[in-house]
């Protein structure tokens, strides 16, 4: 058994949210540069240049890349041999968020109630996903998730007979309908299988994977490329003002499902896709 003071989690949550908001991930930077080389639209190239310039400026000044510093999503995977001490784990996570958003000059965008919409003032509570695994390590992943893109996400319960064509149609149609709203170039997370909420969870998890990685299963790695081609052939382009750079990557995650169903979820994030992780 390993004892871990929740103060350690609080510190890491704080550090990771600040870092994620200031520094664009290197895999996204590389994709942006690659697409900048081949983008055929003049406006598209100008937009990509500004995005790259912005990332450099934010990193230099240690300020947020984008003012939508998101709702704070936290994935915590802990070994079943870990015993947390020093108080509530969830309170520690929220304390870390509170400190990051106050001390990091990040925007507080969370409202207490979805209909009575009063700001909580400190960006808490975080949306926390727990999972337990064998061993005694703790893996912490944070994602400040902007809502321009979150609002364009969707879940659909397809019929098994819809098959892969149905999945392709739903994903491409979701991106087409989103158009300029999610701040393209976007990254598309796709969750296939499980149940309704499992598919949605997988689609968000998919956004944490590096853009230069592929699904481990060759079939789904191919499907990722098929979807990316179809999406970038839509013409939407950077900021929806036309071009070939609509998405930088499509990441798919799957799970076994019921023989009567084919749940599919699409979670979209903008080019300012921010996430950080640590294994403690």
């Amino acid at each position: 058994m390993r004892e871990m003071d929740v103060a350690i989690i609080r510190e890491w949550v704080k550090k990771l949210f600040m870092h994620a908001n200031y520094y664009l991930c290197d895999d996204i930077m590389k994709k942006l540069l690659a697409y900048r080389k081949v983008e055929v639209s003049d406006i598209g190239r100008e937009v990509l240049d500004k995005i790259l310039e912005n990332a450099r400026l934010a990193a230099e000044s240690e300020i947020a890349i984008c003012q939508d510093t998101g709702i704070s999503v936290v994935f915590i995977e802990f070994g079943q041999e870990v015993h947390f001490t020093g108080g509530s784990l969830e309170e520690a996570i929220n304390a870390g968020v509170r400190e990051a958003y106050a001390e990091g000059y990040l925007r507080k965008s969370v409202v207490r109630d979805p209909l009575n919409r009063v700001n909580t003032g400190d960006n808490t509570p975080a949306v926390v996903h727990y999972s337990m695994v064998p061993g005694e390590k703790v893996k912490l992943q944070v994602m400040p998730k902007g809502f321009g893109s979150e609002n364009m996400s969707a879940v659909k319960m397809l019929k098994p007979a819809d098959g892969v064509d149905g999945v392709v149609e739903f994903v491409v149609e979701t991106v087409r309908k989103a158009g300029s709203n999610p701040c393209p170039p976007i990254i598309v997370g796709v969750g296939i299988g499980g149940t309704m909420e499992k598919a949605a969870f997988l689609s968000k998890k998919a956004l944490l994977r590096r853009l230069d990685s592929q699904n481990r299963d060759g079939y789904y790695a191919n499907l990722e490329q098929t979807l990316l081609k179809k999406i970038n052939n839509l013409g939407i382009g950077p900021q929806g003002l036309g071009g070939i750079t609509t998405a930088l990557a499509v990441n798919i995650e799957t799970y076994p499902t019921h023989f009567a169903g084919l749940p599919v979820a699409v979670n979209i994030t903008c080019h300012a896709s921010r996430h950080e992780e640590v294994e403690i």
Partner: protein
Amino acid sequence: MFKKITTPLDEQLIQELKAGDRVLISGIIYAARDAAHKKMTDALAAGEDLPFDINGQVIYYAGPCPPKPGMVAGPFGPTTSGRMDRYTPALLDQGLKGMIGKGLRDAAVIDGMRKHKAVYFAAIGGIGALIASTIKSLRTVAYEELGAEALVELQVEDFPAIVAIDCTGRDLYDSEPPKYIGKFEECINEEKVLL
């Protein structure tokens, strides 16, 4: 290539601006998003005055991060304009001449823009740090209780934007994307790293 323009926008300039023009905006603009728009249109519906003289002015759909010490403004990029569509025709009726945001506008907004000769600029979403560097002063005008959603007056210098919809209703979001349908195929062969 960039056209330098100043606010408030005069009628002749508005007529000259065409969809696709790249502009650098200097002068006063007003930042407001969902909650401030609701308050402004509620005030109009109740027969009250708006908290500022909107005639000839430009509204920027945005809510910032707080500024770091020594900085005028925190990251301050545009939000999705479509959420403000339902409030916009009433503001155009009051003399609003320019809007800055990102994404599509609905038919009622575009009709209002044609009728009152107004222009809609697209700012680039996700470059809040860069946009903050164009803000030279900032003053809260009203609704301070809304925090990042308060109505704020900004003095900007060379704020980069693109005319997305001009006063004749020509819409870049309609005209541009169809030109690039299917073009990605041609690019993949040049640069394998895209996939």
